[in-house]
């Protein structure tokens, strides 16, 4: 069964959607969309480093994302520049550095488009293993820190004053986000990854009255987007990564229009 590329794509895509759903909710709640974008852009630098040092791409992307996340936290403390300026600076300079590094390595032939916009249809059994093992690991960690991370999201001050440790929760969150970026890159690529994090979560907002509910609904929306995107890609012969994102956009538009109609009546 796993020998069929389309089945492999579905299994990989569903795995990614399951883990990005709840994490995407935190990205939305914490207004970290641009932060997520910066981390995923930096993944291209991770790819270049992996090829240069001949190490595993997933591992290299994970380490690079963690490094960029902490570089950002460090810069935010010391600098007077606003966060969005720093994010823009890091997002685009890491991608530029990655592109230059790749261009130097004339001895490797890389599918740049695949890294930028995803290459889900070429997914291997090994990729699926990485997605499911890594994804499960992230989900377990997330469940363990869920309550504390949520309290730190609602009010870091209350959380800290009342004996929780929001810095530690934030630290775990960064690590989890970097790991998710590393394992999901194959599906939609570094340019479109943030969309997969935030669009299902944003669509889920209108239907949720508790954080857990929103996490589960965004998983369902994510899975539907993957399925819808993959089937349209097959049907209309269009690129798979962008199709998944457009599918999630259509779902989002449907949810807000439904919301508008409900408001009117």
């Amino acid at each position, binding site marked *: 069964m796993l020998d069929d590329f389309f089945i492999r794509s579905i299994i990989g895509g569903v795995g990614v959607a399951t883990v990005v759903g709840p994490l995407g909710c935190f990205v*939305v*709640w*914490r*207004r970290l969309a641009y932060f997520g974008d910066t981390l995923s852009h930096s993944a291209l630098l991770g790819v270049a480093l992996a090829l240069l040092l001949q190490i595993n791409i997933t591992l290299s992307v994970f380490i690079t994302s963690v490094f960029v996340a902490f570089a950002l936290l460090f810069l935010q403390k010391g600098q007077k520049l606003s966060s969005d300026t720093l994010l823009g600076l890091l997002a685009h300079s890491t991608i530029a550095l990655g592109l230059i590094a790749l261009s130097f390595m004339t001895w490797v032939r890389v599918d740049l488009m695949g890294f930028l916009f995803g290459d889900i249809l070429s997914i291997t059994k090994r990729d699926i293993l990485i997605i499911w093992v890594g994804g499960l690991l992230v989900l377990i960690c997330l469940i363990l820190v869920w309550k504390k991370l*949520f*309290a730190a*999201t*609602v*009010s870091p*001050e*209350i*959380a*800290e*004053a*009342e*004996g*929780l440790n929001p810095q530690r929760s934030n630290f775990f969150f960064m690590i989890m986000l970097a790991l998710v970026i590393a394992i999901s890159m194959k599906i939609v690529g570094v340019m479109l990854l943030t969309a997969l994090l935030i669009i299902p979560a*944003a669509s889920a*907002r209108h239907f*949720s*009255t*508790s*954080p857990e*509910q*929103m996490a589960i609904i965004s998983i369902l929306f994510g899975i539907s987007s993957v399925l819808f995107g993959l089937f349209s890609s097959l049907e209309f012969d269009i690129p798979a990564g962008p199709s998944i994102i457009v599918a999630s956009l259509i779902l989002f538009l449907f949810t807000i229009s439904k919301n508008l109609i409900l408001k009117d009546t």
Partner: protein
Amino acid sequence: MSKKENALIKLTNAGVRKNRNWLVRGITMSVHSGEIVTLIGPNGSGKTTTAKMALGLLGLNEGTTSRKNNLRIGYVPQKLQIDWTVPIKVKRFISLTTKISDKEIEFALSLTNTSHLSDKEIRVLSGGELQRVMVARAIALSPEFLVLDEPVQGVDYKGEDAIYNLIEETRTKLNCGILLISHDLHMVMSTTDKVICLNGHICCSGTPGVVTTSPEFKDLFGERMVTNLAIYQHNHDHEHLMDGSIKK
């Protein structure tokens, strides 16, 4: 037992600096069980900063702080901005940091007259409603040390009185130490044990009576305020219910 031994928190010559400016400096104060300490002072005088030092939210640039081990703290911050995308109901907000039973949640909400809001989402509450819910949440934790940073902001006149009464009742019931930041000098006069008057440093401190007659207080708040305060210094001989009628 001497008073020093059972202090819940104690700041000694504490100060916090932002860049090159001292936000506050030379703060020495303590809060004991069953005691209400009120911080007053003009805007920017370091009231919130002092409260945050006491809570351990800010690293000190000088001085020391000591807190009782495993101190159970309830905190009502001055501002709470929850992004509208966070789906959280009042009930869930009450047990944000500690698991609290439904029965206790209901009871805490009834104290601030907000039981009807328990299934509402936080984002639809008005400023005053949110403030009441925050007070209910802090009390529901049955804290040993309660910090309230301007707890009646945006609360209507009747509600204000009720919340101040509630704070006093809570002190008696839980025997907790309370650090209160308040602009309402009426409250300061009637229920506070100790007033600390701040303006970047401690201008004067002591019982309400001592503080209001000190020249530093007059300097800070002006003659008019001091004269106006005189009318507040009377004994309450009756209590109001939530609807304003007199409690019999």
